C-alpha cells in the first residue's frame, strides 16, 4: 500500500540524533571561527513549533574562513523557494559582510546540523532567527579580537563589508579573514544576542536577485540526477500497476539475457540495471510480471461520500460559544458541502537518487526536502549506523511537499549499490512519479452557518474530512463557533485512501479556505451586501483588515452585492503567520463553462520582509500554482490505480492561462518575518469561485472548477430561478 504517514515518518527524528561528535564537527569546519548555536537556548521557537518537534539540538553553524568568506551550513534545502538567498541576507546583515561573501552549504548531513525538513514555510521564520543570532555573536567575537589586535576599545570600532575599523581613523583596520586566520575559536552563545533592528538593515530587507540564478541559467546547477560517478549504473525498478497489488510471478530471463544488463530480484525488489538509462528501460520492458490487483472500491467520483462515511472520530479544533444558541440567534442559516479531489505534486524533477555504498559506508545524493530523515531511512535499509550514511542534497527541482519524508528511490538505489558494489542511480520516470506520489488527499468540508438580522455571523459549525486543521480556524468574529476535523491529511485512519497521501503546498489549507471564504460569500450575497464590506463587518483583526483593504485598493474594488455580472471576487486567509487577501477578476464562457482568470491582486502581511523580491516571487508562484488546484488539477483513479500518469491528462497551469498578477507587500515591521512559501496559495480557489459567482450567479462547490462543473452550476441556477 502506498499510504504514507508523514507525521510518523518524521516523528522518529525528534530532537536529534545529531550524529556528529563535537570534535568531528569542528574538524570538518577547519580553521576559522566556529559559532555553534542551539535554537532552544533562546526560546525563539513558538509553542506551535515545539509541537512539531523542531529540533532543539545544534541547528546550524557558520564559519568565517581564513579567506574572509563566510560559509553558512543549514539543514534546510533550496528547492526553488529562495532561502539560499534570504538566509544568506540574514547572515550578511548580522555579520556585516557583503552578501557575495557568503557561501551556503545546505542539506548535507555530514557538514550540516540536524534539521527536521524544509516545509511549512519555516526556514526564514524559525531557522532565520537562530542564524541571525549566530551571526550577531560571530560579529561580537570578531570585534573583540579586533579590539585586541588594534589596541582600541571595542566601542570605538565599526564593521563594514567584513572589515573592522577604527571609526575615527579608518586607515586602521583589520579584516574578518585576517582575524580568523590560523585560529579555531569556539564559542557557545549564552543569552539572546542583540540582533540588528530592522530600521538599520542594509543587507536584509532589500530586494536581492537570487544568488543561484546564474548557475541555473547556465545549466551548471547540479541536481541529484546530474551527479556522475565512475562505473555508475542506472536502475529501473519493477512497479505494480496499482497500489495494493501483489506480485504473483515474475520472469526476468529475457532481461537477464540482454547484453550489459544486470537483474536484481531479492526481498520484493525487482530491478534491472545498465550503463545508460535507455538500456535499463528496455530491459524493464522485457521483464514479464503478473500481479493480483485488488478490486477497486472507490474512484474520483465516489471518494467524497466514502471519506465522510469512513471518517474517524472528530477532534475539536475550535469551540467557542454554543452552536445551538447560534442556531437560535440566526435569522438565516446556510449549509453547504465543499470538495476537492486528489492533487499531484508533479515537480518537474522526478524523485531521483544516486547511491554509492562501499566498505560499510554510504553516500546518497537525493532530491529531497528531508535529508536527515532519509539518512535514517537509508541507514535502516542497509543495516548501517546513521553516522555511516551521508546524504547530500544538491539543488532540488521542486518539492511542494512531495519530497518530504520517505525517499523510496534512495532506499532502492542504496540497496542496489550495496548488492552490486557500484554506484547506482534511481530516477523515476514521469509515470512512476505520478504512481508513487503522496497525493494531497481528497477532502470534504461541510459548513453550517447563520447570520442575524444585522448581517453578523452568529453561527459556524464546520466539519473537515481528511484535510486537517490548517487554516480551518475561524478568521471572523463568530460567537458560536465549532470547527472539527475528521481525520487529517497526514494520516489514513484506516481504509480511507487507496493511494499514498501526504503534504501538498499549505496542506489542507486550500480546501479549508475555499470552504470558509465561499460560505462567507454565500452569506454576503443573501444579505445583499458587498463581499468586502461583509467581511470587514465581521472581522476585527487589524492585520486581516489591513490586507483586505490593501488588496481592494490595488484592485480598485468597486463595492456592490454579488452577483454583479462583473466577475470580481475576494477572499482572505492566514497561513504560516502571514495574512493574505486576494481579489480575482474572471470571465466565464457560459456556454462552455470555461473560466478565464483575467487578473489577480494579492496583498500579504508577512511581518518583516527579508528579501522583498523573493517574497513577491513566492506570492506570484503561489497564485499561478493555485490556478491549477482551482481550475484543472485533479487526479483520476480507480481503487489503487492512478489513471493520470503524465502531463497530457493531468493539466498544470500554463503560460496561456496566466492572468495579470499584482502583488502588494503590506508593511509590518513590528513583527518578525513570517511564512512566505505558502500563504498566498490558500485563497486562490475561493477568490476565483467568488468571482465566478459574481460573474454568473452560479456557485461551484468543488475544486477543480472544471467547465463541466461550471456548466452544471449555471444550469442549476437557471432551474432555481
Amino acid at each position, binding site marked *: 500500500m502506498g499510504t504514507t504517514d508523514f507525521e510518523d515518518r518524521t516523528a522518529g527524528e525528534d530532537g536529534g540524533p545529531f550524529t556528529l561528535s563535537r570534535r568531528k564537527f569542528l574538524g570538518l569546519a577547519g580553521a576559522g571561527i566556529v559559532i555553534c548555536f542551539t535554537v532552544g537556548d533562546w526560546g525563539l521557537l513558538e509553542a506551535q513549533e515545539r509541537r512539531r518537534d523542531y529540533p532543539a539540538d545544534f541547528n546550524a553553524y557558520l564559519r568565517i574562513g581564513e579567506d574572509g568568506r563566510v560559509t553558512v551550513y543549514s539543514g534546510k534545502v533550496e528547492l526553488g523557494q529562495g532561502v539560499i538567498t534570504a538566509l544568506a541576507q540574514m547572515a550578511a546583515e548580522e555579520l556585516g559582510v557583503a552578501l557575495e561573501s557568503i557561501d551556503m552549504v545546505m542539506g548535507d548531513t555530514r557538514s550540516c546540523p540536524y534539521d527536521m525538513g524544509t516545509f511549512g514555510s519555516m526556514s526564514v521564520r524559525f531557522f532565520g532567527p537562530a542564524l541571525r543570532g549566530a551571526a550577531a555573536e560571530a560579529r561580537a567575537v570578531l570585534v573583540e579580537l579586533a579590539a585586541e589586535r588594534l589596541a582600541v576599545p571595542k566601542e570605538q570600532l565599526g564593521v563594514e563589508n567584513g572589515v573592522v575599523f577604527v571609526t575615527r581613523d579608518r586607515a586602521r583596520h583589520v579584516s574578518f579573514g585576517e582575524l580568523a586566520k590560523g585560529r579555531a575559536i569556539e564559542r557557545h552563545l549564552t543569552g539572546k544576542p542583540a540582533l540588528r533592528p530592522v530600521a538599520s538593515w542594509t543587507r536584509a530587507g532589500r530586494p536581492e536577485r*537570487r544568488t*543561484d540564478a546564474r548557475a*541555473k541559467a547556465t545549466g551548471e546547477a547540479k*541536481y541529484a540526477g546530474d551527479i*556522475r560517478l565512475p562505473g555508475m549504473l542506472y536502475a529501473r525498478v519493477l512497479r505494480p500497476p496499482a497500489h495494493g497489488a501483489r506480485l504473483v510471478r515474475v520472469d526476468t530471463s529475457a532481461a537477464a539475457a540482454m547484453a550489459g544488463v544486470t537483474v536484481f530480484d531479492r526481498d520484493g525488489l525487482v530491478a534491472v540495471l545498465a550503463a545508460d538509462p*535507455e538500456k535499463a528501460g528496455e530491459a524493464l520492458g522485457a521483464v514479464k510480471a503478473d500481479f493480483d490487483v485488488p478490486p477497486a472500491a472507490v474512484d474520483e467520483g465516489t471518494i467524497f461520500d466514502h471519506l465522510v462515511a469512513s471518517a474517524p472520530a472528530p477532534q475539536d479544533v475550535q469551540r467557542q460559544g454554543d452552536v445551538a444558541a447560534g442556531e437560535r440567534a440566526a435569522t438565516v442559516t446556510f449549509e453547504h458541502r465543499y470538495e476537492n479531489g486528489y492533487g499531484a505534486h508533479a515537480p518537474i524533477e522526478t524523485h531521483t537518487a544516486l547511491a554509492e555504498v562501499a566498505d560499510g559506508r554510504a553516500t546518497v545524493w537525493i532530491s529531497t526536502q528531508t535529508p536527515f530523515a532519509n539518512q535514517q531511512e537509508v541507514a535502516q535499509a542497509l543495516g548501517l549506523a546513521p553516522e555511516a550514511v551521508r546524504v547530500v542534497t544538491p539543488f532540488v*527541482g521542486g518539492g511542494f511537499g512531495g519530497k518530504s519524508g520517505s525517499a523510496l528511490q534512495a532506499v532502492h538505489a542504496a540497496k542496489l549499490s550495496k548488492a552490486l558494489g557500484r554506484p547506482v542511480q534511481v530516477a523515476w520516470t514521469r509515470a512512476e512519479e505520478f504512481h508513487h506520489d503522496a497525493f494531497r488527499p481528497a477532502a470534504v468540508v461541510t459548513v453550517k452557518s447563520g447570520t442575524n438580522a444585522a448581517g453578523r455571523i452568529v453561527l459556524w459549525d464546520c466539519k473537515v474530512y481528511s484535510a486537517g486543521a490548517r487554516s480551518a480556524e475561524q478568521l471572523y468574529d463568530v460567537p458560536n463557533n465549532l470547527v472539527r476535523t475528521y481525520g487529517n491529511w497526514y494520516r489514513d485512519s484506516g481504509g480511507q485512501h487507496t493511494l499514498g497521501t501526504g503534504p501538498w503546498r499549505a496542506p489542507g489549507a486550500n480546501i479549508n479556505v475555499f470552504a470558509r471564504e465561499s460560505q462567507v460569500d454565500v452569506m454576503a450575497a443573501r444579505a445583499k451586501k458587498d463581499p468586502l464590506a461583509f467581511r470587514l463587518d465581521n472581522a476585527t483583526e487589524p492585520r486581516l483588515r489591513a490586507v483586505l483593504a490593501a488588496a481592494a485598493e490595488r484592485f480598485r474594488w468597486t463595492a456592490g452585492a454579488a452577483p454583479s455580472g462583473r466577475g470580481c471576487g475576494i477572499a482572505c486567509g492566514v497561513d504560516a503567520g502571514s495574512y493574505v487577501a486576494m481579489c480575482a477578476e474572471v470571465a466565464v464562457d457560459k456556454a462552455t463553462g470555461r473560466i478565464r482568470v483575467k487578473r489577480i491582486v494579492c496583498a500579504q502581511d508577512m511581518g518583516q520582509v527579508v528579501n522583498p523580491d523573493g517574497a513577491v516571487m513566492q506570492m506570484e*508562484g503561489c497564485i499561478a500554482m493555485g490556478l491549477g488546484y482551482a481550475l484543472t488539477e485533479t487526479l483520476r483513479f480507480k481503487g489503487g490505480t492512478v489513471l493520470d500518469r503524465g502531463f497530457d491528462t493531468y493539466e498544470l497551469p500554463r*503560460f496561456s492561462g496566466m492572468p495579470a498578477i499584482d502583488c502588494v507587500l503590506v508593511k509590518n515591521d513590528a513583527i518578525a518575518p513570517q511564512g512566505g512559501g505558502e500563504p498566498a496559495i490558500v485563497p486562490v480557489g475561493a477568490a476565483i469561485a467568488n468571482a465566478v459567482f459574481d460573474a454568473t450567479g452560479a456557485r461551484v462547490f468543488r475544486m477543480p472548477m472544471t467547465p463541466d462543473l461550471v456548466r452544471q452550476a449555471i444550469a442549476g441556477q437557471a432551474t432555481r430561478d
Partner: protein
Amino acid sequence: MGTIAFTLNGKSTSLDVDGRRRLLWVLRGELGLTGTKYGCGESQCGACTVVVNGEPVRSCQVTMADVQGKDVVTVEGLARDGRLHPLQEQFIEHGSMQCGFCTSGMLMSAYGLLLRIPHPTREQIVAGMDDNLCRCANHKRIVEAIEAAAGGR
C-alpha cells in the same frame, strides 16, 4: 553502433553510438552535458528542449541518427566567449527561475523562438512557450525576461 558527427555548441563532435539512442540521454551521459533535463520523456513538459538547426526540439524524442550532420545547441552553448546570452542575463535579472529544473528548457525554447521571431509580441511569446511547463509557476517572470531580451537586441 555507428559514428554520428554533428556540431555541438559550435564544436565539431563525433562519437560512436547507437543511432537509435535519444539525444537527451547521450547529452547527459556520454557527453556530460547535464544542463538538459529529463522531465517526462514524452514531449509533454519541455525540460529537455535543445535547438537543432535553429529549431527548438524535445531531445527526449530526437534520436542520434536525427542529428547526424546537424547543428545542436544546448543551454551550455548559449554563452559565447564567456559572455552570457541576453536571455540568460534577463532570466537572472528578472528572477525567472525558482527551482531551476525547467529553466534550461525555457531558455532553449525562448532562444528558438527569438531565432524565428526576433521581436515577438507578448502573445507570440505565450504561444511559443506554452508547451513548456514550470511547476514553480514563475511564468510571469519568464515572459518578462524574454520580452526584455528581445527588446534589448
